[in-house]
């Protein structure tokens, strides 16, 4: 993992800020988001690190992290952030970046196991498709 001039000057932050409408540069790494995240135990990159990686242009590390797909957008972090950064929106923007780069969907309805299709609440399925199939 290495920060370079090119990475610092990359457009990732600008893109993510544009997509999410959030100010990634505003984060000053207090760590309150990570401290309160209910699913942090399952994450490989902590929420505050997501923002730091974005600030430092550490694109690969971010886009390959499991965290992006683990965040449940519960907004606990967002409601407590002293800098007013809506972190779930930032994470959503990162997911979209990946989807746009790969040119494909992360999730196709067809790929859902039958058991999930039958038992998952419909609202959950709809929001999953909205998230993954943009």
């Amino acid at each position: 993992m290495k920060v370079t001039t090119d990475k610092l000057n990359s457009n990732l932050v600008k893109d993510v800020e544009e997509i999410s409408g959030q100010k990634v540069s505003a984060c000053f790494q207090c760590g309150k988001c990570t401290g309160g995240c209910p699913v942090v135990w399952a994450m490989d990159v902590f929420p505050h690190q997501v923002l730091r990686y974005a600030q430092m242009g550490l694109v690969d590390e971010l886009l390959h992290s499991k965290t992006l797909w683990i965040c449940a957008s519960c907004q606990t972090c967002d409601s407590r952030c002293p800098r007013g950064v809506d972190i779930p929106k930032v994470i959503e923007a990162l997911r979209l970046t990946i989807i746009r780069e790969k040119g494909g969907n992360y999730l196709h309805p067809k790929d859902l196991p039958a058991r999930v299709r039958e038992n998952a609440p419909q609202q959950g399925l709809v929001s999953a498709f909205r998230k993954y199939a943009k």
Partner: protein
Amino acid sequence: MKRIGVFICWCGSNIAATVDIDKTVAAARTMPGVVHADHNKYTCSEMGQDMIKDAIKEHKLDRVVIGSCSPRMHENTFRKTVEAAGLNPFYMEIANIREQCSWVHKDKETSTDKAISLVRTAVAKAARNEALHADEMPVEKRALVIGGGIAGIQAALDIAESGFEVDLVEREPSIGGRMAQLDKTFPTLDCSACILTPKMVDAAQHEKINLITYSEVDKVEGFVGNFDVTIRNKARSVDMNKCTGCGDCMAKCPAKVESEFEEGLAQRRAIYTPFAQAVPNKPALDRANCRWFTSGKCKVCQKICPADAIDYDQEDQLVTNKYGAIVVSTGFDTHSLDNYGEYAYGKHPDVITSLEMERLFNASGPTGGKILRPSNGEPPKNVAFIQCVGSRDREKGNPYCAKVCCMYTAKHAILLSEKVPGAKAHVFYIDVRTPGKDYEEFYNRAYEEYGTSYIKGNVSKVFPDGDKLIVRSVDALSGALVELVVDMVVLATSVDARSDAKELGQKLSITTNAHNFFNEAHPKLRPVDTQTAGVFLAGMCQGPKDIPETVAQASAAAVKVASLLNKDNLMSNPTVAEVNLKYCNGDMSCMAVCPYGAISEKVIEERRGRETVKRKIAEVNTALCQGCGACTVACRPGAINLKGFTNEQILAEVDAICL
């Protein structure tokens, strides 16, 4: 027998937590001469002082002992208390059971024993205390300000506006100091020169301010209200009365040297004013670099001067003036980078200090305000700013924080983005510290609006790579290694006390801390006073601070000066040396050790039997005596006593502890 009252202070929990108050009070009651003993949570409070006054009346006390903090803290307070109750203030004695007892001991039993011991000592001394009376001394209604930066200018203006004459002494040919070197000021981005130069002109034009530039303080004698200060007017080689400031000499002088004002980024002539807006706008001749003085040839300036103002024969002049009060505002030096080879300063032209960066930003600087790489004159694209260079470094720098670097680096980042389109600032920091009105917001703008990257990591190495520089560090927040390719590196150099601060401190009898910044009398409550009455501090010479703090301190010092000069008379310190003629044998050892020149020889006539004989004795000038007591120790026959600290009193104290 004296009637002594003892009052033990809890000082909240400061004393009471470590000293058994009840036990100490009980012990005091048994001490010889003590007729009353009591305690109070805060003796210095109004209630505590009233308790003492009431007890003096009720128990007809004629001596008072207070077991409390150091006399440095509240001796004056309690002297006034007993005076208000009708006693001579010198009948009061303090036993220091806080700084010298409760604060330095942990075990309650031993500290209680010690407190009792200290109280017994004070009781023994108090029993021998005599009434002392202060003399009145006149006050010279004129102030001296040493150092003509923004602190000195502000102090001089405020003192002058209060109606007193001020002499403002400046070492350089012009007043203005460090602030004159700066470009913009945080957090408002006011142009430094635009707000400073009017003040410089105000100072020069004020009828009560006398500018003494190119001069230094040589010797300080006397005391509050009556300082005798000798000022060395360095030979300027320019007759200030004749010089019109036309500048012809500076234009034609063939000797070029690095300009101190431009931080070495440009050259000046041997005859020069430090900068175009200099006040006074009249040059000085730097003899160390002048061709006439170094090689005996040239004299171009004298030939060209239309006013015939050049005078190579001028000599340093020593002038002694009387002052009632002194403000010290001598500023700071920037930290030497000799120990920081890892930053390649001095090895690569594109590694510069922040003060050099200020000159590059400045419209009247060497590049006319353009940010250009010193190596090739091209505008930079990526600039690394390294903070804490020489600060917070216990091993080879200053252990303290220089306080201003975080803010001026944020300012540099903002100005860089504004001046060089597309340029990016990368700031390496340990912590970013922004305590000050609108400071945090300013720093926030640097990274939110101007896209400055802030990387938490101290740079370990800077080295060239082709025509670029590589900066190596780590981002401690992400754990990522950092290796940036940049065009310029700016070092936020720490600030030091002036290299000769200690020397000046000795002249003024004021102390410095471990880093040679002048000590204030009390860090909280007397931040502009020094331990020497009549000497006050303003600006960086007391410790790192920014311009608003400096100006505030300068104005505060000016008020202190004005309130002192407002008095027609000052009360002298009555604890001075006194010669007992009966014992004095005239060997004058006392005179040799007196640091204030307060002792002189006197011949007296005495009747001895039928003869009249002449005999030499020592005489003390009580106005000059500072009560240090050196003479009392040097005097072999024991003829000199320090009033309030007589040999008899000291021995009584020793007996009280040892017997």
